[in-house]
């Protein structure tokens, strides 16, 4: 299983308006960045050279991991997608 191909096997109805908004400036100061390894969908990537956190909500499985592991309260918004949007499980 290649996590980069998540859209090949899990269905999403992507909302253009993100349900999670990250203040990535806060992540620069974070000494753990546990979101980058803990997120099961690899929505968070840290670029050490540019010292920059990137968050993409498209493949979010709405599991809640980042909400719990973030120790810096870096979210300016953390809610579930609007009704009808987001991940759509078929047979899990």
């Amino acid at each position: 299983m290649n996590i980069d191909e998540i859209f090949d096997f899990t269905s999403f109805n992507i909302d253009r308006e993100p349900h999670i908004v990250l203040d990535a400036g806060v992540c620069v100061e974070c000494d753990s960045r546990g979101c980058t390894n803990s997120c099961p969908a690899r929505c968070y990537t840290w670029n050490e050279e540019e010292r920059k956190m990137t968050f993409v909500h498209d493949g979010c499985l709405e599991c809640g991991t980042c909400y719990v592991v973030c120790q810096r309260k870096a979210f300016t918004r953390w809610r579930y997608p609007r009704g009808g949007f987001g991940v759509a499980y078929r047979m899990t």
Partner: protein
Amino acid sequence: MSRSFQAIVVGAGPAGSSAALTMARAGLDVALVERGSFPGEKNMFGGVLHRLPSLEKIFPDFWERAPLERHIVKKGVTFMTGDSSFNTTIEAGSFDRPPFNGYTIFRPRFDRWLAEEAVKAGATLITRASVDEVLQSDGQVTGVTILDRKGALKAPVVVAADGVLSFTALKAGLRRPSFDPGQMAVGVKALIDLESDLIDERFGLVREQGFANEFVGCTAGVRGGGFLYTNYDSLSVGLVFHLASLKGSGKTPYDLLNAFLEQPQVAKMVRGGRLQEYSAHLIPEGGYDMIPELYGAGILVAGDAAALCNATGLNLEGINLASQSGVLAGEAAIAAHKARDFSRKGLSIYKSLLDESYVMKDLKSYRRAPQMLHNNRIYNEYPELVCSLMEQLYRIEGTPKENLSKLFLKAARDKVGLKNLAADGFSAWRAL
């Protein structure tokens, strides 16, 4: 447009639909609010539904009506290292007869069915509705608003059954604003298709019999475990990690899942299958000590939202507790309507009902289990100890054999340390 109901249930999962079904059957006008485009669309779990006494009361022929995959006749535990595994299985005749002890299910089918039963009983299902605000007046919850929709849903009692992060409970002031990663686990799962005949032969099953296996030692030292469950013509294979341990390890869930699927003994079980779906979800694993305020003025909290999950190490029970708590929340709301008292005191009957039920009794009995399971040795050293001991017992070297107790002491000293062994034995005995 605003609408008034006699009760609002937030979340059409097992807790919410059980609550809505209970109230609708008693004649209450209930709204069942679900953020997915259908109930179950957002819901994920390992795959085994334990027996649901709460629903068997409502549906005596539950196993005939509910959309189930296979009933579990065989349960196994595997202690695993990178290239060896030691298995124990129990297959019981009684597991093969109704009332069955557990089933594999798909949540998008099962949750949808249960919500539809609530609708048949008279509940109003509102889908694609993500609850935004919890309305309060003088500290009394009076209803909710829906994101991107005008107006409000009003009711004298709201059941928060909106899952593990329960923003409804948060907004009503019933849960703490942040969670402890030490009390949470995350599960990831690969749904792998495999022909039903192949599953029957590979796992020694006939008819619609199912097999549920748990694994320990398969998480590269991260606290957690694995599972493999047989659906009708697919397998649910996944891992569960304690969040604090995963976070600190720097390892990723999908890399660990791939390694698990490639472990030689697991690889044989999934061979020929194709990945159909990948999913993930949090599990409130803190047990009794994690439970938030269960009720307030005009509000009750049920299921994962109330952290009603029992992780004993062998079983991971959630949906059965969710459904039972949902039924009891429904009964509490019915009693409040009869007494016309929706105050905190009026709804406190919910806590009494829960305390008397197996839900709270089990969570209290296993109160120490979550702490016991925080012992890192369980996930690495012990599986290695078991596998190496068994391997040595069976190995023929052409030299005289050592006796069993010597072998055991030597392996235990090597892998775990005798002091640790004694301490861990004591803590496991106390916890279980």
